[in-house]
């Protein structure tokens, strides 16, 4: 399974904070992104950062592993 997380302004637009996606071998980050972007077009307009396992990732061609945690995040506004 791939765990998908939304927070703050993105979560408000998706209406959910967590999703699970089936994992299949050779799965790339871009596959997850394409699927979700389709489902949550509004929310994804506000996505500025993507992380895999707590680390920001820019290259959507990276291959995922079973159990990965992916977060889609708006620009930060803490502090």
């Amino acid at each position: 399974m791939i765990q998908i997380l939304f927070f703050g302004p993105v979560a408000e637009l998706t209406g959910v904070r967590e999703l699970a996606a089936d994992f299949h071998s050779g799965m790339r980050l871009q596959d997850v992104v394409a699927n979700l972007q389709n489902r949550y077009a509004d929310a994804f307009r506000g996505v500025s950062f993507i992380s895999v396992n707590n680390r920001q990732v820019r290259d959507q061609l990276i291959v995922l592993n079973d159990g990965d945690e992916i977060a889609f995040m708006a620009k930060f506004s803490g502090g």
Partner: protein
Amino acid sequence: MTAVRIQLEDFSQDAELLALRAGSQRMGGIATFIGCARDFSEGREVSEISFDAYGSMALVEMNNLRSEAIIKFGLLDARLVHRIGIIGAGEQIVFIAAGAEHRAAAFDACRWLIDELKQRVPIWKKEITPSGDSWVTQHP
């Protein structure tokens, strides 16, 4: 009490500084920053602020910031605490402390830490106002 934390509860500067100073008696200068919830923002009254965080990643980033600052500025120690949840106008949000032998490094590091925290730590704030709520977009 660890040096880097995300928590619902308020924090005590006395407790944080005691912990910071406990590590070394060579610390001549400590600079701190406390961010508070303003009752007014972008021309509107704000009654409270709601914070959401990606807790595990935020802790990783805050720990990275602490380690980087210690090396970059030659600090003796540093601490970072960020609150989440609902924070009323006038209440404390974030605490940063940087301790060094001399004050210049402490000031430079403290300022760098809060600037970087705002850029790098996955926390989001929503202002709750009498005329509605709105997520804040950072103006750097």
